């Protein structure tokens, strides 16, 4: 045999031997060290949006997936994914989804800076959470402070301070609920959007009408005319109308409720109307945002 043949042989044999040894060890180890894992975990995790926004009250999508499997957590807790994700997860888990609507936040205050009365200059940390600890910044202790903590936490550029009050851009909003958690005055709440546009109360002041009028030009006075228009849907608690959204049906005659309101507290929210669309015609809509780190690369687990 020539030298080259021998070297070739030896090299090939060396690697083959190594592959056999390593392969055997790993293969045997794979059997011996086998740990059973629920295969559905990966599939559930894969069908969640991966935004890790925490709206489901778990640290991330992975945790939520684990909770669904291990603790039997409800499959409808992901507001970002909405019904599509719920049904996908339901399919994997073999459970049915009764009913799921996308939930979106609603700001229960409509008073602009100019409409809020009894304001006092405020020195201190310029965030709502800090300012909320100082009394007397404005007359209304329920209303929006306008310092924008909700804007700061929104990863989707979907909430803005317009004339000093938070306004949600429902085209960009994915319903993660970060603003709901950020608001120190709890005036943002998650509401099921049973239609593209729903009616909502835009005031949170629980005081008597006269006191509300002293501090706000637009706030709800608790006059109850809305509740009289539809007593089934609306009840007035603490001088404030409350919608029972489980009974809300887009086919109800709702416009009459808004028409009855003497202040400006009943508002249609949601998808923009054709008129509004015409105004924003040229604005390019950003594609639905995914969390930044979810690049193609990350799916591979490979770094180095």
């Amino acid at each position: 045999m020539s030298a080259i043949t021998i070297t070739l042989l030896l090299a090939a044999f060396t690697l083959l031997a190594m592959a056999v040894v390593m392969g055997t060890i790993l293969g045997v180890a794979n059997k011996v060290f086998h740990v059973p894992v629920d295969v559905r975990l990966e599939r559930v995790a894969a069908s969640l949006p991966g935004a890790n926004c925490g709206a489901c009250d778990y640290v991330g999508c992975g945790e939520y997936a684990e909770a669904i499997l291990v603790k039997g957590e409800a499959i409808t807790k992901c507001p970002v994914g909405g019904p599509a994700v719920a049904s996908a997860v339901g399919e994997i888990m073999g459970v049915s989804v009764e009913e799921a609507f996308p939930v979106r936040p609603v700001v229960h205050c409509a008073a602009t800076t100019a409409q809020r009365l009894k304001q006092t200059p405020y020195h201190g940390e310029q965030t709502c959470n800090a300012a909320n600890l100082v009394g007397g910044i404005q007359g209304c202790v329920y209303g929006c402070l306008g310092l924008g903590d909700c804007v700061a936490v929104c990863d989707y550029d979907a909430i803005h301070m317009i004339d000093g009050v938070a306004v949600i851009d429902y085209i960009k909003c994915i319903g993660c609920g970060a603003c709901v958690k950020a608001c120190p005055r709890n005036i943002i709440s998650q509401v099921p959007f049973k239609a593209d546009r729903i009616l909502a109360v835009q005031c949170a002041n629980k005081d008597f009408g006269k006191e509300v009028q002293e501090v706000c030009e637009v706030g709800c006075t608790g006059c109850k005319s809305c509740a009289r228009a539809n007593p089934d849907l609306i009840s007035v608690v603490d001088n404030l109308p409350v919608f029972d959204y489980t009974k809300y049906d887009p086919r109800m005659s709702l416009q009459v409720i808004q028409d009855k309101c003497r202040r400006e507290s009943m508002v249609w929210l949601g998808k923009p109307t054709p008129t509004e669309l015409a105004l924003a015609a040229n604005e390019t809509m950003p594609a639905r945002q995914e969390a930044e780190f979810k690049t193609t690369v990350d799916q591979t687990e490979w770094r180095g």
Partner: protein
Amino acid sequence: MDYLAQLLLIGLGAGLIHNFVLYYFVGLCPFMGVSKKIDMALGMGLAVTFVIAIASTLSWGLTYYVLRPGAFLSSWALSLITGQAGEVDLTVLAYLVYIFSIASSVQFVEMYLRKYFPPLYKSFGIYLPLITTNCAILFACLEIMKNVVGVDTAAVWGLDKALVLSVGGGLGFTLAIVIMAGIREELELADTPKSMQGAPIAFIVAGILALAFMGFAGIDTSLGKLMLGGS
């Protein structure tokens, strides 16, 4: 005494003076990726140190006994085939063999941990797949190879030196990544400009850290003189 001094110098050199990350730029991905929290960084560093020790032992053994010209096993195989003594150079296979053994040992460790130490696996195991492609490990193997193949017989490294180099390098990596994590935790509280946040500022910090580590340059030379005698 001289022996210990030699080992000390190798370890010190790999850990501090020629730090894997700050001097040779190897292991940068985990250095950047897993340095956001001190605990995680420490876990990563120790995992790397552990794997690096295993991998360098394996690769030293394979290089010394199989790959290098005149290695015991390859010569023996040659004599079986040809019936006469001789030597064969298989170093061309080195890269393949190293990466093979690194990948296999990492996977083995991962499976073992998952079965017998689930808590450890949970806190430690997530780093293991990342380690396979951590160039620090392959780099240590290559450094060892440099001192086994193609050097004068007297200077061929034994397993002891190989291990000291790899563990020293691993600990140096741990030190660097833990320092980095500490600084990045601190920077969480700072108002770093938007465009510098994340990787850019981390690189700047690494740069200044590398600058600071340059202060150690020459310590091994001086210590060598002190402990091993001048000439």
